């Protein structure tokens, strides 16, 4: 019988009065891919952070290769052969792939030796992965960066790999390639833990699945003997329906015309080039694209946060160029942009939920004082309607878990009853249960005649939820397609810049 690479027994970790992990059991064998599944705030990240030496458990034991260990620092973790691939890459942008790979390893005495490119190349061949050692990181696509990140931890001698939501930034094709790499490593006897929210990926790549719910490990099942439905129920704790509605409605009329729009970022680099599209009343228009293809700039331009370089944006036939963000909010364009760190824009983290409710309309009440009574009522209703788990409406937003932060933001935007709702990454990192609730809310808005611009990551969801999908690549539109008749593969091709053959 083979020894487990990792065995966690009875791990408990608390932060103040919050229990993040309670009596968690988990094991990963060599030559196995284990998927770690759980809703937001179920303690996945905390658990993995204990393996990578960032936190230490209050109680319980960690065994690596059958030996009990204490991991006190990321250094310890590295020495034990554990490599963590974070969602946000930890690479030096201005350095070459080879330099980044060698950087973290301790055995190199002379990092800048001329033979370093050869060395990295030889290593890559040995493990069967491909990367150009001389290429600079800033020249790389996201998937290439990820490959470098993986090679880096392998070079450091890791044979236990932890990947935290690795597919969030990849196209379907890139995801498939990543899975090939993981399968190859599995054959070589590595132990792999993959954290993901996407159940079809779990089914595609993993051997076993461990499910966390509310900080406890509720079950471990073999992937071959389970179904998506069963996994969901284990995760949520009760049965859920897994279909997204696409209700029809008879709203007509165009709300937003974007006309040959070009936008530059603060460094003067053109991030959107000649973008034109319409958004209709009662429609959900999806915006797909690899991360950083201009989605953020598009949202910001419509919300009046970035100046329009060329072209025009018309809202109900009225040009909004030159209007201040406050005026744009007033005419009924609401934006909820969920940035990668979830807090950067839209919420003030150190303020309470109540105070965040009035962020955009506090100035409308009469007199010099803020009206918090109304805000408290609104906070209460958002907390109830979206099932935000929080000790009170006076809790600082910073203290909520990521998913709850998102619910507060979206709840406020929807509550403001805009005629155009821009949501970017509305379900980023959200668990199934909360995601479906948000799809429902967005559908309700659609039926009320709101035009929704839905910037998203999960193509499966976009094809089910949206009416049309607009694809961005390097700031240009490569296609606007009918979601009912398009396949994921087509979207994937458009995202990488292939010519758009279908225009709706």
């Amino acid at each position, binding site marked *: 019988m083979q020894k487990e690479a990792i065995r966690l027994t*009875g791990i*408990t970790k608390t*932060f*103040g*009065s919050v*229990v993040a992990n*309670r*009596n968690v059991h988990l094991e990963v064998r060599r030559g196995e891919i284990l998927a770690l599944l759980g809703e937001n705030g179920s303690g996945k990240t905390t658990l993995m952070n204990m393996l990578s030496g960032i936190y*230490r458990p*209050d*109680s*319980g*034991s960690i065994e690596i290769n059958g*030996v*009990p*260990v*204490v991991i*006190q620092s990321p250094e*310890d973790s590295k*020495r*034990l052969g554990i490599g963590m691939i974070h969602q946000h890459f930890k690479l030096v942008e201005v350095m070459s792939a080879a330099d980044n790979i060698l950087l973290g390893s301790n055995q190199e005495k002379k990092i800048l030796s001329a033979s370093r490119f050869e060395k990295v190349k030889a290593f890559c061949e040995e493990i069967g992965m491909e990367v150009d050692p001389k290429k600079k990181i800033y020249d790389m696509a996201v998937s290439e960066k990820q490959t470098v990140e993986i090679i880096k931890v392998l070079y450091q001698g890791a044979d236990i790999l932890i990947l935290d939501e690795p597919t969030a930034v990849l196209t379907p094709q890139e995801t498939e390639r990543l899975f090939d790499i993981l399968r190859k490593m599995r054959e070589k006897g590595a132990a792999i833990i993959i954290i993901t929210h996407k159940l079809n990926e779990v089914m595609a790549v993993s051997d076993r699945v461990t499910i966390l719910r509310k900080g406890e490990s509720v079950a471990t099942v073999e992937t071959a003997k389970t179904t998506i439905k069963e996994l969901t129920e284990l995760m949520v704790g009760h049965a859920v329906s897994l279909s997204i509605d696409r209700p029809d409605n008879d709203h007509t009329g165009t709300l937003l015309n974007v006309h040959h729009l070009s936008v530059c970022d603060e460094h003067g680099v053109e991030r959107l080039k000649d973008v034109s599209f319409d958004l209709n009343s009662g429609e959900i228009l999806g915006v797909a694209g690899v991360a950083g293809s201009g989605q953020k700039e598009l949202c910001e331009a419509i*919300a009046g*946060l970035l100046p329009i370089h060329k072209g025009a944006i018309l809202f109900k036939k009225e040009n909004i160029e030159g209007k*201040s*963000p*406050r*005026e*744009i*909010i007033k005419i009924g364009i609401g*934006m909820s*942009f969920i940035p990668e760190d979830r*807090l*950067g*824009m*839209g*919420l*003030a*983290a*150190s*303020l309470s939920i109540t*105070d965040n409710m*009035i*962020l*955009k309309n*506090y*100035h409308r009440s009469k007199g*010099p*004082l*803020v009206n918090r009574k109304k805000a408290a009522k609104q906070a209460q209703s958002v907390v109830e309607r979206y099932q935000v788990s929080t000790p009170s409406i006076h809790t600082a937003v910073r203290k909520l878990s990521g998913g709850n932060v998102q619910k507060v933001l979206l709840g406020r935007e929807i509550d403001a009853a805009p005629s155009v709702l821009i949501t970017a990454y509305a379900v980023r990192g959200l668990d199934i249960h909360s995601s479906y609730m948000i799809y429902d809310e967005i559908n309700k808005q659609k039926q009320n005649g709101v035009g929704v611009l839905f910037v998203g990551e999960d193509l499966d969801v976009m094809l089910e939820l949206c009416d049309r999908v607009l694809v961005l690549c390097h700031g240009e539109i490569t296609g606007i397609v009918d979601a009912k008749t398009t396949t994921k593969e087509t979207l994937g091709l458009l995202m990488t810049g292939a010519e758009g053959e279908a225009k709706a």
Partner: protein
Amino acid sequence: MKKRESIIHISKRPPLSNWKMATYYGLAILCAVLISSLFVILTGTDIVKFYQFVIDGSFKSDLSMRGLVRNILPLLITSLGVAVAFKMKFWNIGAEGQLIMGAVGATFVAFTFPNLPHGLLILLMALAGILAGGIWGLLVAFFNCKFGTNETLLTLMLNYVALYIVQWLRDGPWRDPAAKGFQKIPSLPKNAWLDQVGGIDITWIIALGLVVLLFVYFKYTKQGYEISVVGDSKGTAHYAGMNVNGIVMRTVFISAAICGLAGMLHVSGDATTHQLTMGVANGVGFTAIIVAWLAKLNPFGVLVVSFFFGLLEKSSGAIESGLHLSKAFTDVYQGIILFVILGFDFFIRYRVSLRLGSKKKNKELKGEAEQ
């Protein structure tokens, strides 16, 4: 590889209730006094006599009480001033200069219109103090908003500019001809002196008023709300449709204006000299930074903390003259007290636990978790 776990384990505490917090701070003060007393005893000073001077120095007579209050007031007002900017995470460490400029502005009005009706003159002086201090801060805010210059450096450097402006005035335009060779600025005309209420100039009423006003301003007004949002994230403020640069400039102006007002009140109210000197600020602008932070930027907290600072300062003076001790001695004494209280702050926010015989403890914890 087997390794021993480290013994000390630091983790964040859940937030404490207000009463518990007050108890802890009380305990901190007690500890600070005990430890600093140890220092006094170790240096061979008579501890009974020492504390007699501490108490007598501030509370014995009307005169010493008045001295104490006079010590507290500039610090209190200036701390309130810097707290406004700090709330917005704007690091205004130029209170010293803003206070000086406020004093300069007030003195200018007093010298230029000495014969105006008394009430009008005082009002004009206050206005000049507010404007002069406020503009001294606004300069920095303007460059910060327009060109992204570092406000810490700029406010700090302007302190020296303000100080040398006073020197120039003293040696040049405002030099007192009556003082013969001695270089000084003449005292303000009597018409420009602040009125007294309850044996002390009206500064104390203004200061207490400011405490309440700022408490309300921070907590209940739209402007106070804007300050918190901008302080939290400028990006979010921009997204919410706020005019971020306008808010920054307005807030810094208010912060600096309060410091300027402190300067005006100081030259016009200080019963001993009524005079603009190089030492008009005397480090108050810097001490105010510590006071504001110790008080967690709460106006009522500022009131309490500046009381203790004033007491410490006043007592130190009494000890120095009464026991013939050097300033270095009282500096160390003050240092110990501050250090202990700041140290306590850490223990109030974090829990430090020792892990002796960690295995046994682990088992206990596990038991708890399973219950």
